[in-house]
C-alpha cells in the first residue's frame, strides 16, 4: 500500500441539514442512543453533527448548516496532551483513539477547538431489541473514556484487506470504503478520499476550489491545526446581483 492521507471535502452549499449523516454514523459506529435527557445534559454523542445557525432577522431569516466531524488534523492539538498516548496520529493521516488506553482525563476534549471529542459520561445502553443491530466491527465503548469520529476506520481496513486479497487497487469511489456519513448523504455534500493521490476525487475537488475564486477553506485555520477536512463555501444566492444593489 502506498502513502495514504485520508480526508474529506464537505460542500456546505449542498448541505440541506437533513441529518442523514448523523443517523448513519450513529448506527455504523455503535453510538449509544441519544435521548432527550442526554441533549438536555449536553452530553449527547454525535461523531458528526449538523450545526445550525440562524442568519438575519425574521422574516428575512436564513438557516445555515454545517456538518462538523473530527477534522483529523495534521497538527492535532488533542494528541500531545494525552498523557497515555490514547490518541495518536497514524501513518494514513488518521487521528486515532485507542479506547483501552484512555483513562478519561478529558484533556484532549478541552484542547480540541472543534468540539468533536466525546466523553462517555454513562455506561452506554441499548434497548434489548437493538442489541443485535450493533456493528460487530466496532468496539462498544465503556463509560469513562473518550471517543470520536474515526473516518469509519473499520470500513477502510476491511476494504484494504479485501482489495489486497483480491489483488485489485483501492477504488476511490468504493462505497464500501467511504464512511457511513458519506454514503448516506443524499446530496453528496460529503466526499471522502485520499489526498495523497492527486487523481482522487477529493484531491481534484480541492485543487479546483483552492484556485482563485475557489470556495475551499478549513475550519479555524488561524489555529494552525492543518485539518484533513476541506470545506467548500456556500454560494450566496444573488451574490452577483448584490454587487450593484
Amino acid at each position: 500500500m502506498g502513502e495514504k492521507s485520508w480526508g474529506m471535502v464537505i460542500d456546505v452549499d449542498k448541505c440541506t441539514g437533513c441529518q442523514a449523516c448523523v443517523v448513519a454514523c450513529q448506527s455504523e459506529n455503535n453510538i449509544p442512543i441519544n435521548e432527550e435527557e442526554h441533549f438536555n445534559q449536553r452530553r449527547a454523542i454525535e461523531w458528526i453533527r449538523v450545526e445550525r445557525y440562524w442568519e438575519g432577522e425574521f422574516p428575512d431569516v436564513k438557516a445555515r448548516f454545517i456538518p462538523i466531524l473530527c477534522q483529523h488534523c495534521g497538527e492535532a492539538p488533542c494528541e500531545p496532551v494525552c498523557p497515555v498516548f490514547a490518541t495518536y496520529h497514524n501513518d494514513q493521516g488518521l487521528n486515532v483513539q485507542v479506547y483501552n488506553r484512555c483513562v478519561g482525563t478529558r484533556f484532549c476534549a478541552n484542547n480540541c477547538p472543534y468540539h468533536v471529542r466525546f466523553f462517555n459520561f454513562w455506561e452506554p445502553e441499548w434497548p434489548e431489541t437493538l442489541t443485535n443491530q450493533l456493528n460487530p466491527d466496532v468496539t462498544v465503548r465503556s463509560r469513562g473514556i473518550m471517543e470520536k469520529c474515526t473516518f469509519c476506520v473499520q470500513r477502510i481496513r476491511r476494504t484494504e484487506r479485501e482489495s489486497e486479497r483480491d489483488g485489485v487497487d483501492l477504488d476511490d469511489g468504493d462505497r464500501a470504503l467511504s464512511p457511513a456519513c458519506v454514503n448516506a448523504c443524499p446530496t453528496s455534500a460529503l466526499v471522502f478520499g485520499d489526498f495523497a493521490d492527486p487523481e482522487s476525487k477529493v484531491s481534484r475537488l480541492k485543487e479546483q476550489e483552492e484556485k482563485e475564486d475557489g470556495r475551499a477553506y478549513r475550519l479555524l485555520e488561524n489555529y494552525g491545526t492543518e485539518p484533513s477536512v476541506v470545506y467548500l463555501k456556500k454560494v450566496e444566492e444573488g451574490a452577483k446581483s448584490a454587487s450593484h444593489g
Partner: protein
Amino acid sequence: MDSHAVGHVGSGIQDTPRGVVRDLLERHDRTTGLYWRAVAAFGLLTVLGIVGFVMRVLDGVDDRSLWGYYAATFAFILTTAQAAPMVAIAPRLAKAHWRRPISRAAEMWSITGIVGLLIFIPMLWILPSLEDGRRTLWFFDPTDPDFAGVPVSSPHLWATAAILGLVALGIALLWVSSLPDFAAMRDNLTGWRQRWASRLALGWRGTSGQWNMLYHRLGILGALYFMMLVFVHFLISVDFLMALVPGWIDALYPATHAANALQAAAATMLLTMFFLRQFGGYKDYIGLDQFWGLGKLMFALSLLWFWFWFSSFIVLWYGKRPNEQAALELLMVGPYLPIFFVTFITVFVVPLFTMIWNPLRKSIWGPTIIAASVLIGTFFDRIRLYVAAYSVPGIGEPLIDKHELELEAVEKMNAVLPGLPDVFIIVGGISAVILAYLIASRIIPLVNIWEQRELLLYKVHKPFHKTEVLVLGKKD
C-alpha cells in the same frame, strides 16, 4: 548576610558618627584628575552620539527599520540606569542594612532619567499612529467610525507622561534622601558646595518631625517609583514594541520587560560599586557584603529571567499557532538566533553556573564580571527585540483584520545590522548617561552619609557565653 553587612570598616575613623560625616564629606570634596579625564572622554563620546543622531534624522523617520537601534538604546537606558534606583528602594523597604553604603549611588542613577527622556522624545515620531491599524493597549479599532473622536495618539501621550513622571519621581526621591546630607555639607564645608547645599537642604535642621517626614516620604516615593517603573515598562513594551509585531501576543511580556530591568539594575549597581571602589575612593565603605547581597539578588533575578522567558516560550511554542510561530521565528529562532543565544548565555547560563559557586560569589571580582556579562546580555536582548520589532515591514498597511505575520515572510527576513550612525547613537547614548551620573556625583555625595551614620546606632557588640557577638537592631 547581614552579619557581614555591618562588618569591617578600614580605619577607626568610621566608628563614630562624627568621624563618618567628616570622612565622607572629605571624600566628596576631593575631585581627582581621573574624574576630569573621564568627563572629557564621555563628553566627547556624547558629542559623537549627537552626530549619529543628526545623521539618522537626515534619513527621515519614515523607514522605521532604520530606527531599531535607536529604540534599543532607549530601552537599554530605561532597563538599566532608570531601574537602578530600585537597588536602593527595595532593600530600604525591607530594612536590609547592607544597602546603606550603596543606596545613594543607586538613587543617583535616577538623574540620568533626563537623558532617557531626551532620547525618548524623537521616538514619538518614529512610531506609527494608531490610524495605521496596529494593535494597541487602547482596545479599539480606529477605523471604526464609532471611535472617530478618540485621540489616536493616546499611547504617545501616556508614555510621555509616564516617563516624565518617572524622571520626576526619581529626582524627588534623590533629593529627599539627600536632604540631611546637604545639611551636613552646609554645616561642614565651605565654598560653592556649601552655598549650593544650603539652598538644596531646604532648611533641614534634623528635628524629629523632619526625620519622621523623611522616612515617610522615602517610603512613599520609593513605592511610587517602583509602580511608575513597572507602568512605564508596561506601556513601552506593549505600545512601542509588541504592537509592532502583529502576531506577537504575550501577556507576560510587560512583566518580563520590568523583571529584566530589575536584573539589569542589580548588574548596573554591581558595576557602579566596583568602579566606586576601585576608582572612586570608597573602598572603605563598599565591601564584600554589598557585593554578596546584591550578587545573590542578581542571581535570583537571573533565575527569574529564565522562568519568565520559559513561561512565555512554552505557551507560544507548544500550541503551534501560525501567528505565534511567526513571532517566535522573528524574535528567537530566525534572523536573530545568534543574538538570542548570546542573551541566553550571558543573562542566564553564566550567572547560573558561576554564582552557585561560593568562592566566586563571595568575592569582589566574581559578581562584577558576572554583572558585566548580564549587562552585555541585556543590551543584546534589547537589540534583538527592538531591532526585530522595528524591522517588521508593512506595518503601515491596515492589519487590524489580519493580525497575522506570515511565517514564510519572516523566514525570508535578514537581521538588520547596525550602520555607522547606529554605533554612534549606542555609544553616545550610553556615554551621555554616564556623563550625567558623573556630573551629579560632584553635587551630591556618592555615599549616603546619614544612613551610614544611622547604622552605627543599630549595631552593638555584646558578650555571649564565652565570646562576643554582634547584635544588630532592625526597626519595625
